[in-house]
């Protein structure tokens, strides 16, 4: 989960990383009670990059200009995201701008310190100058000094910059983060350092042991209203595309393989949804300490059927969806419950104001109790196909027949 800049800076402040005086603005009128002196920067609080270039940062000298600028920023979407909050921050005159980050490297399975003396908004230029230090044993401040030297720093900057890196590392470990980034780290003419922008990505799987971060996550999720996703499915496994075939599978790898097959067969996916109950439970909804493997379903649902019903509702919300391909595999998952969920979903759909016409459900099921599931599905005229490619071909055929291409 990506934190917003003002939230990241709150963590920096707690850790003793220098940040500028700032104030959170929820509405342009909040600027009348501004407690920091002008000139200030007003910064759109969105989770996507490219904010500066998109016009999401404005410098102002007085209240009138500030209110106008804040209004403009609140109404400026950046890659589709409108800010809920704008950050008002003192202006800082930086002589130089550096890039610093702490990340986990998957290949070496070690934390890595990154630094560049070319920070700022031009990320590509930053990449070229970036230096890297692998923390291959227990962390000690010398790793941070090693990075400072590799960056080419001299004199007092060695101590001040490595001091920041050290605190970033502490934050990284204490809060189980995936990323701590300061870009840019401003260096004043007198050699003072200041975190001018910051990015913190919390690890979703560790949120359960960081209630303070999980609270931030739950607040942010309430605000993302662009898709109406039921809580049990509120993870990042639902992806919208432009076609007419909805794909529901259990397991990320199987979902991707099924998506590929639909495309290779000439079909156009409308969306895909991974409802692997286990990977879902690891999602960033307050994974409670004792519930993870004990109850593999998300705690918002009581049964696999209920979970699948919600998935079917979500996947067919879009009117373009003509076919739903359900591909469920495995021994833990009960075929019978899958069939029951499909039956309930179709009955509900039929009795609601929406008509069932135009929607085909194709079920690919493998596992225990298959004969019961088969019987149940055939009673409602839903085909159950054991072979994956046959099921995909059928789904694509149906979709083509409906739209007539």
């Amino acid at each position, binding site marked *: 989960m990506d934190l917003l800049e003002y939230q990241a800076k709150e963590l920096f402040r707690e850790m003793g990383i220098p940040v500028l005086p700032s104030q959170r603005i929820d509405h342009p009128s909040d600027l009348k009670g501004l407690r920091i002196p002008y000139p200030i920067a007003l910064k759109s609080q969105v989770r996507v990059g490219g904010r500066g270039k998109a016009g999401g940062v404005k410098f102002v000298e007085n209240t009138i200009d500030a209110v106008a600028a804040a209004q403009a920023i609140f109404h400026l979407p950046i890659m589709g995201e409108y800010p809920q909050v704008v950050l008002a921050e003192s202006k800082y005159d930086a002589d130089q701008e550096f890039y610093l*980050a702490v990340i*986990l490297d*998957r*290949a070496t*399975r*070690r*934390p890595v310190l*990154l630094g560049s003396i070319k920070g700022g908004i031009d*990320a590509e230029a930053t990449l070229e100058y*970036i230096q*890297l230090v692998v923390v291959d*044993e227990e962390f000690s401040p010398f790793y941070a000094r090693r990075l400072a030297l590799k960056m080419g720093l001299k004199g007092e900057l060695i101590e001040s910059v490595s001091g920041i890196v050290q605190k970033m590392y502490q934050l990284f*470990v204490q809060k*189980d983060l*995936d*990323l701590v980034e300061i870009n840019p780290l401003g260096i004043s003419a007198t050699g003072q350092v200041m975190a001018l922008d910051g990015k913190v990505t919390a*690890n979703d*799987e*560790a949120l*359960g*042991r960081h209630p303070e971060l999980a609270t931030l996550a739950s607040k942010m999720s309430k605000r993302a209203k662009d898709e109406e996703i039921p809580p049990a499915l509120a*993870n*990042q*496994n639902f*992806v919208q*595309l432009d076609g007419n075939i909805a794909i529901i*599978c*259990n*397991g*990320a*790898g*199987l*979902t*991707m*393989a099924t*998506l*590929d097959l*639909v*495309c*290779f067969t000439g079909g156009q*996916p409308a969306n895909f949804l991974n409802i*692997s109950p*286990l*990977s879902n*439970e*690891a999602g960033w909804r307050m*994974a409670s*300490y004792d*519930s*993870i*493997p*004990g*109850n593999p379903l998300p705690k918002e649902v009581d049964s696999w059927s209920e979970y699948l019903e919600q998935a079917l509702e979500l996947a067919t919300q879009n009117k373009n969806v003509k076919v739903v391909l359900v591909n469920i*595999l*495995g*021994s*833990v998952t009960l075929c019978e419950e899958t069939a029951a969920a499909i039956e309930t979903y179709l009955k509900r759909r039929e009795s609601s104001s929406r008509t069932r016409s135009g929607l085909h459900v194709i079920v690919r099921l*493998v596992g225990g109790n298959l004969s019961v599931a088969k019987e149940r599905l055939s009673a409602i005229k839903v085909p159950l196909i054991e072979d*994956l*490619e046959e099921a995909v071909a059928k789904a694509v055929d149906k979709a083509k027949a409906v739209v007539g291409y």
Partner: protein
Amino acid sequence: MSFKADSKVLIQGIAETLGSTHAALMKTYGTNVVAGVSAGKGGQTLHDIPVFDMVDQALPAVGPVDITAIFTPAYLVLDAALEAIAAGIRQIIIITEGVPPLDMVRLAAKAEATDTLVIGPSCPGVIVPGKVLLGTHPSEFYIPGPVGLISRSGTLTYEIARELTRSGLGQSTCVGIGGDAIVGSSFQQWLQILEEDDATEVIVLVGEIGGASEEAAARYIDEAIDKPVIAYIAGHHAPKGRRLGHAGAIITAGLADLGADVGTAESKMAAFKQAKVPVAERPSQIPELVKKVLKKSGHKKK
């Protein structure tokens, strides 16, 4: 590696729902499950398996253990694994999902220092068809034979094993190494294990988009593996920049991966092509390709 029919197996977190379910399935398959551990449940018996409060108490009762399968809650996995290592167990399979990556960093360092093989987390474990089941693989999809299968996924592994089985191609050893960003054992380690395994004649490697482990595996195959390898990559049509369940399946062309094009299906295909590894476009092509290389290498069907 020693995953044999008579390997002595411990189950940590045996009183958890998943642990209990799969302990029973493993035992039914013939796996030599000698004991279970769940703090507070010591003295009980589950599926005829004696349960102890700690690993330290189990070992004196049942003797040295070869493998432990961990089903404890995610935040207790690191501790459970360290407990197993302290007790001298050198093969650890972590089934649990959602282990925080920094816990895995600590565990990986400890495993390297103690020469311990850690499989997972978030994995279906290992199956040697007809001999031993260590994890959650649905055993009905597997039959014994010459194909070694290595994968990052759970259900996709089952799918491909089922395809092989339906084509009459049995498997020597199948492993899901886990879909997380930080996992205990790598494709390379398993390629080496299967290279040395007499029962394996051909290796199927199932990869997916995200990370750089397939690229690294391709280089390793080129340099160090003599047995034929067939690859398959899932996620050609997954949109970029979205997270797809597996933490490893994030395509970020940014700073974190330090290389613009690593992680895409194209870069993985290119890496395998360079290593002269045939890549199947769809799961059903895998058996064909396997049969082709088996024929070439003179495999005689018994």
